[in-house]
């Protein structure tokens, strides 16, 4: 085990002078500096098109910065090898805005993917997946093919898939957009619980309701820039 001090002080995600650009288009984000401590919880906000999804995809290692350095788990993702990237990704849970489920597979098989890619035995997988799907109230739809599920059901499958591995980093892009309020708060409770167990959480959301209800700092994107709105000030502003 690492020493406790190290875990607490080392940033789990660190971005220095990062630019994101697609092809020859102008920068989506310019000169971003962001340091996330291990065990932190942030909301990610900004207007549609502000670059929330782009920033998250850099954190889950699907996008490399066009400029600047990004360190995740202390490793520069610009220099990480393919094998190393795969090992890092196993410690990151992702909920995509558009779910990105494997539509031809059942809810069960989708949630099992992160466990299967690390070679876990089927018995252990069965136990964990059933438990989690029951918790998100999908035990009845476990064997349904994903393309036949409703939007809210898909979202819960996507969230189950993201947390099944007990990830060190959880990145969720609009995770409560398609579910009823009570389920939305239940899912938020799940994220909060995971955070208490040490998971670093970033949740992109438009929901002022959710932001107001939880006292967490906010990463706000506007005009290609990034601004951290601390928790307390924000709460005061809301009031």
């Amino acid at each position, binding site marked *: 085990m690492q020493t406790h001090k190290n875990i607490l002080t080392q940033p789990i995600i660190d971005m220095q002078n990062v630019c994101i650009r697609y092809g020859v288009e102008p920068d989506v984000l310019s000169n971003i500096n962001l340091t996330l401590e291990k065990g932190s919880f942030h909301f990610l906000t900004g207007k549609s098109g502000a670059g929330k999804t782009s920033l998250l995809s850099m954190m889950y290692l*699907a996008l490399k910065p066009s400029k600047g350095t990004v360190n995740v788990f202390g490793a520069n993702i610009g220099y990480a090898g393919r094998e190393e990237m795969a090992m890092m990704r196993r410690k990151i849970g992702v909920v995509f805005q558009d779910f990105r489920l494997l539509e031809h597979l059942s809810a069960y098989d989708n949630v099992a993917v*992160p466990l299967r890619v690390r070679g876990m035995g089927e018995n252990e997988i069965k136990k964990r997946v059933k438990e989690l799907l029951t918790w998100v109230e999908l035990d009845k739809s476990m064997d349904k093919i994903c393309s036949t599920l409703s939007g809210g059901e898909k979202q819960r499958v996507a969230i189950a898939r993201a947390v099944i591995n007990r990830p060190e980093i959880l990145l969720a892009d609009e995770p409560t957009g398609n579910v009823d309020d009570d389920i939305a708060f239940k899912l938020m409770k799940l994220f909060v619980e995971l955070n208490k167990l040490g998971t670093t959480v970033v949740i992109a959301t438009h929901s002022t309701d959710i932001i107001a209800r939880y006292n967490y700092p906010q990463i706000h994107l506007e005009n290609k820039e990034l601004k951290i709105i601390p928790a307390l000030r924000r709460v005061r502003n809301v009031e």
Partner: protein
Amino acid sequence: MLNKLLHKHHSELPLKEDKANLFLEISTAISVFLFSIALAAYFMISTVIKTWNSNIIDGLTVQIMPSQQTISTDEEALRVGKVVHFFEGLDGVKKVVPVNEEKIKRLMAPWLGVNADIDALPIAKLIDVRLYDGKNFDFEKTADNLKEIAPYASIDNHGIWLKQLVKSATSLKTLSIFVLTMVLVASVFSIMYAVSTSLKVHQNIIEILHIMGATDAYIAKQYAKRGFIVGLMASFIGMFFSMLCLRVISHLSSGLETGLIGSARLDGLHWFLLLCLPFGVAVLSMLTSYLSVKHTLKEMM
């Protein structure tokens, strides 16, 4: 059983429904068909060459035909002596022995009958020439040279045309190796093509798997499994038709089963190797799929 093997490990990629599968099955079946025919041809030709080569003995016989006009015994002895001398001066000749007349008569007796007056018959003189190495002895040149100094002598030319047959059979053998190689290269390329097409089709799923922490090897294994199964099934189809073809050929040629062609047979080992072919192809298809997926993924993302 194959299905069980496929489903034992969960494949996230719906490779079973790939459109490329049919292309791959057909092209592999054709490749296996051609490959097994060429391989059977190779085996048969090898056997034939072996038989023929063992028929080229380390020796030859020179015949001196009895002359039309009566010639003196001295003249006759001179003729024999000239031939003996010619061979004694040649490289690669171990021993030159004129076969004595008594022996010839004894050899001929069974054909002529006991009552025949052998002495009255004009009998060819035979000279037995022993060689160190019949396979590398140039029968043709020797025959030509001999004709110049002793036109009345002739070499029993069994070895000459047998050697020519061996020569052309050897080039057939080379041709079959060439065909085998071409078929092999073609099928490796079609597997690589099918794999890269499939990777593009499933790019979205592959990206998701990568983000979930799948290694390239994890994805490549799913292709390897599919490659093995497709390879095995296609090989059995290809083998079925090539075996049918070989049966028909051997049936048609059974009328020709005389000495030379008759030795063009497949023995037990050859059949065994041919029947191993589907598994060899399945393994090849598996490895090719695996390696080309790993290679392509490295370039992709």
